[in-house]
């Protein structure tokens, strides 16, 4: 235990985050093994993992880099469809674990290319422009995929922007992406375990980036752009770095998500999904990675737990969101929370611990 005390505050906080995720994984695994988890909860595990990865990656852009991105679902979508296509092209002959890994890697690759393409010009802009461009990007991706047909037969890949007919597949050919119908017949490669590993990977990348030299540069740009520039930090480079890494991680999360269902439609990855991910981040606390992880899990389970009240559940969900936002950001409530915390810490004579890096 002596060693642990010597760890820096950031490392200790990171270890708590890893430990929290691992503990949750082990507890869930035990519940499943003993047969006491409900079907509903078991079905939610993989989407929860995907949303945790998405929230963590968006946190890198919104919390750490301080940019507002409204098109995160676009990267998720690119990753999802890349992963699906690659996995199906590899065929069932390949080992499932290897297939999944290659699928995730290619999802990350295409999503990061998209991230570079959009980030390169946009990262030279300031203020709200990034929000507007990412918003448009998400919609463009959705509409492109609605008009995107990809098929494979013995002559190789066929691609069309018109219709499935225009692919001209020979007998035995197979449509991989079918316009607005999206992809179907997706192999179920995602599992809770794969989701857990992806969360750990995402956390590892993001937390290490934050505590690195580059991470400090990114935060310096967030906190004061001019000051950062004056000490020789390449502002565009560091903003782009955060943006592209987040895009790649979102792509991987998208592939994990897609391979949990046998059909995925481009419509799923619309503005609403982008906003949902943003809500996960904002509710968890911008820049607070552990908070994002917790809020992603809670907000995915909440609407399912509220199913018993039928059509009113979305109303309750909205009320919970508003309440939680107020509790986090309303100045009077924040003050009230601070007082309570002071009372507690006065009793314990200890200092309060704050997780991750805070955006305050």
């Amino acid at each position, binding site marked *: 235990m002596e*060693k*642990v005390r*010597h*760890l820096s505050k950031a490392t200790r906080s990171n270890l708590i985050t890893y430990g929290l995720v691992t503990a949750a994984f082990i507890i869930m*695994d035990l519940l*499943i*093994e003993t*047969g006491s988890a*409900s*079907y*509903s909860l*078991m*079905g*939610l595990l993989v*989407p929860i993992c995907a949303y945790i990865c998405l929230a963590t990656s968006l946190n890198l852009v919104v919390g750490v880099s301080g940019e507002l991105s409204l098109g995160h679902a676009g990267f998720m979508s690119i990753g999802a469809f890349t992963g699906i296509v690659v996995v199906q092209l590899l065929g069932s002959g390949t080992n*499932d*674990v290897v297939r999944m890994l290659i699928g995730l890697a290619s999802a990350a690759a295409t999503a990061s290319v998209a991230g570079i393409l959009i980030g390169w010009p946009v990262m030279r802009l300031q203020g709200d422009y990034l929000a507007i461009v990412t918003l448009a990007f998400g919609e463009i991706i959705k*509409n492109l995929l*609605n*008009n995107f047909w990809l098929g494979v037969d013995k002559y190789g890949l066929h691609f069309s922007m018109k*219709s*499935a*007919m225009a692919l001209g597949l020979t007998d035995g050919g*197979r*449509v991989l992406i*079918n*316009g*607005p*119908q*999206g*992809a*179907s*017949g997706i192999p*179920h490669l995602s*599992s*809770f*375990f*794969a989701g857990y*590993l992806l969360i750990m990977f995402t956390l*590892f990348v993001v937390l290490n980036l934050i505590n690195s030299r580059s991470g400090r540069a990114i935060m310096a740009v967030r906190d004061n752009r001019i000051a950062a520039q004056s000490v020789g930090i390449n502002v565009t480079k560091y903003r782009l770095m955060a943006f592209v890494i987040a895009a790649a991680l979102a792509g991987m999360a998208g592939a994990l*998500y897609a391979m949990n*269902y*046998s*059909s*995925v*439609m481009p*419509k*799923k990855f619309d503005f609403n999904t982008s906003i949902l991910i943003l809500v996960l981040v904002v509710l968890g606390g911008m820049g607070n990675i552990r908070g994002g992880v917790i809020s992603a899990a809670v907000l995915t389970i909440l609407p*399912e737990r509220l*199913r018993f009240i*039928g*059509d009113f559940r*979305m109303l309750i969900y909205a009320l919970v969101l508003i309440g939680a936002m107020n509790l986090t950001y309303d100045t009077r409530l924040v003050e009230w929370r601070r007082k309570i915390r002071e009372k507690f810490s006065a009793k314990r004579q200890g200092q309060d611990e704050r997780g991750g890096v805070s955006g305050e």
Partner: protein
Amino acid sequence: MDLTRMSRRGFLQLAGTLGVSTLLGGCGSMERRPYTGPTDPQKVNGVFRIGGIAPLTGPAAIYGTANRDGALVAVKEVNDSGRLKLELNFQDDEHDPEKAVNAYNNLKDWGLKALVGTTTTGPCVAVTDETNADGVFQVTPSASSIDVIGGVEGSNEPAKHNVFQICFTDPNQGTASASYIAEQKLADKVAVIYNNADAYSTGIFNNFQAKAEELGLNIVSESTFTDDSANDFTVQLNAAKSEGADLIFLPVYYTPASIILQQADAMGYQPKFFGVDGMDGILSLEGFDKSVAEGVMLLTPFVATAHDERTQRFVQAYKELTGSQELPSQFAADGYDCVMAIVQAIEVSGVTPEMPAPEICERLSETFIQPDFVVKGLTGDARWLETGEVDKSPKGMIIKNGVYEAM
């Protein structure tokens, strides 16, 4: 282990070794838990638990609630007549595969023995995959893609022998429409307006196009819209008009169809209109001027204004249930037929509610594909092929004086 002095490379090595070893060793432990549903006779108490999934909120809610209300009418009728004891639990899927699978898992916790749903194609494909893995019998009222049943030509999905459709498949509707237009020589130049963000609409269009090419129908204009742009069709109508189309094929649902008809009327363009089953319901749309739908032709299996006694009784019961004067659409009739088909199969096969779900599924599926198993439903006399496709004939209807008439 000295965590503070560990080098970065050492940490990576450690993480890598741990990762790969757990990855290769631990993956097998997550097997799917078999599903039976409640089998204790005391707990089941002779009640068949039927689950339902439909979009009850969101953009497709109008179709989902119709499905649900139709099914509710059927359940009430069956329970009142004492044929069986049914309990129906409908869950919302928001027209999203993720939510549909969540809804299905929820129904598993409740203990469903058969499933009615889902309404829309995309979510349905995801759900049928789950029911197929669990062995839960499923009848879908209106998910019309071939991926829902799988195993037929052009489908990406493996065959799912537990899934049956009440509605026609998309290929059927597309080809039937093209054949009908060509055989009756309804038009020289055909224009199509379809929703390219919608699986149903695109599915029908693709098959219509293929058949039209084969029959030598001249498609002069193809224009598209999406859910976001489904409130102005002047561009699409002008394109059709400038190409001189004398028939517009509308493989779309009735809400956008109503706007297309009104706008065509406003710009004084009067081609023939031809729709498919999604167009049914247009006459009961609130605030819709029926006169602009005069002469519209559509293929639909159900007509709410038909005079036969069963349809009238259904319409009456539907109005009582919903408490409104709105006529039930084809979606409501499909929902009703789903429940009635399951009830009839339960009676024929003699399964009991205490049986585990996979056994019920097997017996019901066998019953459904018997050649002499015919369900006389509101949407026609239905038989099923081994693939799960329905075999019934679409009715060609034309709107005259604000009501449907057989063509």
